């Protein structure tokens, strides 16, 4: 061999110096990320500072307040609509011990699966330990115990609750559901265990002082699908602003985005605090629409059993105790819980207790409404709540967010690879289905896919999932991600120079071997940054699994933040959840940028085992 290597090796030497310049980059990236984080924390600190020392511990609306909170029947009661006769309450019930628990139409024998909400204390809520509770749920627990049933609570959205009960996602809906004739078309109800006033909440000193003041020009907040929604639309004939939950509705009233809020009285009383600058200006009541648990159609045994259990807990005094602990209010004239044969609950004279309480709490100095800035500071940057939120966000939320996004990421990548290979196939029978799938799933909003998969496929596969939508949620996310990942892979594979396939085939590899050994590995490498971006989207989209109804232990970051937000009426836990997302996503974003830069410039020359550079082949 005569020809030398001197000329060639020159090129390598010059490469060394240029690579050294690139090595400084990762350090700069790290510094930048650090600075960004510091800046973020700094901003939070500055904004939060004015408030902390003055703050009382935020009131927990999800703990029994006891008779301290007793209230008489509202004095500002609008002319009550007197309903006709009570057509639905059963005259009597069978004794609890004569009920055949095996004959109940339960999804899982021996276990009562309950759909409930997390944000409507004191009736239904998640407490600071992450347990579903509230008057309705504690009472239902007592009923289940009477019947010898286990009980399991799942958080969901009110708007979807009745359809989830009707579709056998849950055995029972427990959510201060006011019975209406419309709702009786979808589900059956037990006898009433509570009654409901509607409260009208409005800013102090504003133009809205009674239901009569509401007009087409008033922006009225309601929770979508509630009786209040129905009342404002059909009885008042107005067009309300619909929110997904009570906490959001009230937050909008406080910040002035809406002019009034029509809510169940319990929720309104739980939400309105001193210093909010709002008050309950009027209540209204309909004796015909009591509050009851919802059960799927055609489950007479279950309804009868719950009715028997309810009468039993009224008879043994459990009802009275829970009622006085959680929601002590004067019973309205002419109404009592349970069947017509049930005894009156043995309650103290709540009106008298309320009067005595009112005397004790002589309005010393009326709490001054806080300034808007103070209000905002309190709402977003309450340190105590941050301290309280982070442990649960990390222990429950972070774990579930990571499980959901990693599982759906892995599934989505596998499915996406299959889609990509079908998409570049020479057979149209593979190409077209891949195309159709991609078009459909890329064209749908994530939340629609999650609801359709979770609620549509859920009942079909409940034998496998045990009616637990958690993994269905992960699958729905994976189906969505696959459509995007498939396109990412396809574009990556198709961007590989044709000469690579030609060279591989010239060696003697078949088309399939060439794709597997040469083309696909290169295509995948060059789309790593896009894949990482997709994973970041998944982390964020995993918050939507919340819509399917999760056990308290299955809640991901957003659901945990939102429940704490609902429980305290303060947005700080959501901000904390947001910070957790940023802690996950910002480093990933910078990792993506780093990989991207490496792909374009190559790796430092002194590292031999380089999986990345793809710029080797000169373009002709």
């Amino acid at each position, binding site marked *: 061999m005569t020809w030398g290597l001197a000329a060639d090796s020159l090129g390598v030497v010059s490469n060394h110096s240029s690579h050294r310049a690139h090595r400084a980059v990762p350090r700069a990236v790290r510094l930048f990320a650090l600075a960004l984080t510091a800046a973020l924390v700094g901003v939070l600190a500055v904004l939060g500072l004015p408030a902390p020392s003055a703050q009382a511990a935020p009131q927990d609306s999800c703990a029994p307040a006891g008779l301290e909170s007793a209230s008489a029947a509202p004095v500002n009661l609008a002319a009550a609509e007197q309903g006709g006769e009570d057509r639905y309450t059963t005259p009597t019930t069978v004794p609890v011990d004569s009920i055949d628990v095996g004959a109940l139409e339960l999804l899982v024998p021996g276990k009562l699966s309950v759909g409930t909400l997390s944000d409507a204390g004191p009736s239904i809520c998640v407490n600071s330990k992450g347990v579903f509770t509230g008057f309705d749920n504690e009472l239902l627990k007592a009923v289940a115990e009477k019947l010898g049933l286990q009980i399991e609570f799942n958080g969901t959205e009110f708007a979807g609750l009745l359809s989830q009960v009707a579709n056998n996602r849950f055995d029972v809906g427990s959510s201060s559901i006011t019975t209406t004739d419309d709702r009786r078309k979808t589900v059956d109800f037990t006898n009433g265990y509570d009654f409901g006033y509607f409260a009208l909440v409005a800013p102090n000193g504003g133009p809205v002082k009674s239901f009569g003041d509401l007009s087409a020009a008033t922006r009225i907040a309601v929770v979508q699908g509630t009786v209040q929604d129905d009342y404002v639309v059909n009885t008042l004939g107005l067009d309300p602003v619909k929110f997904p939950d009570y906490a959001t509705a009230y937050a909008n009233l406080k910040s002035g985005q809406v002019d009034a809020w029509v809510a169940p009285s319990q929720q309104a009383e739980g939400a309105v605090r001193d210093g909010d600058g709002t008050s309950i200006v009027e209540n209204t009541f309909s004796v015909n629409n009591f509050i009851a648990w919802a059960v799927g159609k055609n489950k007479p045994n279950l309804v009868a059993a719950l009715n028997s259990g309810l009468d039993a807990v009224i008879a043994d005094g459990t009802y009275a105790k829970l009622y006085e602990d959680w929601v002590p209010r004067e019973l309205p004239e002419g109404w009592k819980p349970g069947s017509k044969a049930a005894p009156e609950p043995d309650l103290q004279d709540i009106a008298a207790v309320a009067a005595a309480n009112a005397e004790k709490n002589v309005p010393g100095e009326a709490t001054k409404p806080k300034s808007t800035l103070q209000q905002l500071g309190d709402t977003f940057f309450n340190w105590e709540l941050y301290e309280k939120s982070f442990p649960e966000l990390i222990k429950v939320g972070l774990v579930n967010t990571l499980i959901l996004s990693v599982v759906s990421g892995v599934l989505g990548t596998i499915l996406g690879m299959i889609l990509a290979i079908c998409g570049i196939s020479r057979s149209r029978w593979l190409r077209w289905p891949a195309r159709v799938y991609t078009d459909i799933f890329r064209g749908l909003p994530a939340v629609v896919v999650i609801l359709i998969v979770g609620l549509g496929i859920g009942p079909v596969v409940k034998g496998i999932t045990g009616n637990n939508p958690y993994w269905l949620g992960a699958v729905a996310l994976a189906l969505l991600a696959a459509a995007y990942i498939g396109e990412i892979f396809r574009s990556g594979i198709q961007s590989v120079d044709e000469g690579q396939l*030609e060279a591989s085939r010239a060696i*003697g590899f078949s088309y399939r071997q060439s794709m597997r050994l040469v083309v696909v590995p290169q295509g995948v490498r060059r789309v790593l940054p896009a894949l990482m971006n997709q994973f970041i989207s998944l982390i964020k989209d995993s918050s939507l699994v919340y819509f399917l109804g999760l056990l308290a232990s299955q809640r991901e970051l957003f659901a945990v933040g939102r429940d704490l937000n609902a429980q305290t009426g303060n947005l700080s836990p959501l901000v904390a959840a947001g910070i957790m997302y940023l802690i996950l996503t910002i480093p990933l974003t910078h990792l993506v940028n780093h990989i991207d830069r490496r792909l374009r410039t190559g790796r430092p020359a002194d590292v031999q085992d*380089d999986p990345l550079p793809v710029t080797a082949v*000169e373009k002709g």
Partner: protein
Amino acid sequence: MSATTTRKAVSLTGTGLHLSFGKHHVLQGVDIQVDAGTTTTVIGPSGSGKSTLLRVLNRLYEPDSGDILLDGRSVLKDNPDELRRRIGMVFQHFNLFPHKTVVENVALGPRKLKGLSKDEAREVALRQLEIVGLTNKADVRPARLSGGQQQRVAIARALAMAPEVMFFDEATSALDPELVKGVLALMADLATEGMTMVVVTHEMGFARNVSDNVLFMDHGVVVETGAPDEIFDDAKSDRLRTFLSQVL
């Protein structure tokens, strides 16, 4: 110097080869005869169908009509993958696999197609790299090599399959002038050793000095063919004379 150990020299023949891409009639009845152990150079202006001819001869493109004989036997009915294992090919742009190291590039074929173990394939690859003088670059990625080095790796990769025929498709056109020499020297060595070769090139020096036969193509047909002397010193057609006056 010995490029390869034992190899049977075979002949390669193409007769009446036609190929169209849609309306574009790229090969319009090409005949080529490469005797065992000889080197045929294919010259001609860009777009005359030289590179396409190579790809038809190893069936990367299937001819519309005509026949291909290797060692006197038609190979059109064989599995094309098996045919290509017998014909090594070197490309203008090297087409090394950037995600694999130099030695992995060379070892891939022997390992996956000849069923050698990982170590055996590496052994074979290192032997080929020694022949092209790049053992010291075995474990780096092609991106860190110069063009000349990359093309030598590509030649080693082709030779690692112990082919009976070698194709070179403008193997030096993408190289900086100072790197051309090394690659041409390697090709000349192969020719001297009796490898059957078809070389598409713009290097008229190589065509004249190394090849046994020169084939001049234009517009998808073979215009003239003959020994280098006949082509370069005694051109019969106007087209060849015009072409030579432009490139020489």
